[in-house]
């Protein structure tokens, strides 16, 4: 009985992981319109068949961050500024 319960639990977890992997979060400073989400899907091919969840993050100046699992694709002004900061720091 105990083994059966464990197996069922594992199968459920696998399903949840599958759904999480299939779900993509896009963080932006304002709520993205359907057109914008569509354009994002067009630009980033791997998002075409994924469910998109839009989260509003007021700390983002502009642009958006695509989060797939643990991976992040940063298209924000914050990222560009961080990159600029790094360049200033690394310059002679």
């Amino acid at each position: 009985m105990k083994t059966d319960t464990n197996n069922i639990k594992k199968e459920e977890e696998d399903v949840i992981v599958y759904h999480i992997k299939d779900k993509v979060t896009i963080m932006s400073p304002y709520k993205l319109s359907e057109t914008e989400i569509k354009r994002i899907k067009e630009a980033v091919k791997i998002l075409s068949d994924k469910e998109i969840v839009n989260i509003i993050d007021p700390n983002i100046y502009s642009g958006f961050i695509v989060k797939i699992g643990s991976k992040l694709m940063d298209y924000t002004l914050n990222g560009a500024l961080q990159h600029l900061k790094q360049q200033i720091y690394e310059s002679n």
Partner: protein
Amino acid sequence: MENLGIDYKMLIAQVVNFTILFFLFRKFIAKPFINFLQEEKKKEESKERILGELENKHERMLEEEKAWRKKIKQEHEKLFAQAKQTAEKTREELLRNAKQEAEELVEKAKKQLEAERDSFYKESKNYIATISISIIQKALKRYLTEDVQKKLTDQVLTDLNKDRKLYEN
């Protein structure tokens, strides 16, 4: 002979007396005196011999002393030269060590200075970068309205699509 006044008996008696006196003189006075003189002579000779020996010994000792003094002087000079040489070597070694230590200290100080300068330079750069970005962020916060944000998002998407098309071609 009697006419000449010579008395034979007296003469014989005198001869006997003289002979006795002669023998007695010889036995008890002359011989011990000669012996005494000989003894004295021997003593004098012995004294002279001892004195000569002593003089020779003294001269020998003087020569030995002279040689010894010469040897001591030579040893002293040799030791002095050795001590001088050792002192010179020690001085040179000390100087060399001091010079080496000084050079090492200078090198260490130089490296430390360079490290501190590099650290200060890095910190300054980091500070400048942070300040610059902070100023930009503050300015952007005032400037970035939702419309501007949308325009920028649109620009990002346009660029992304352009890049994708370039990549596909």
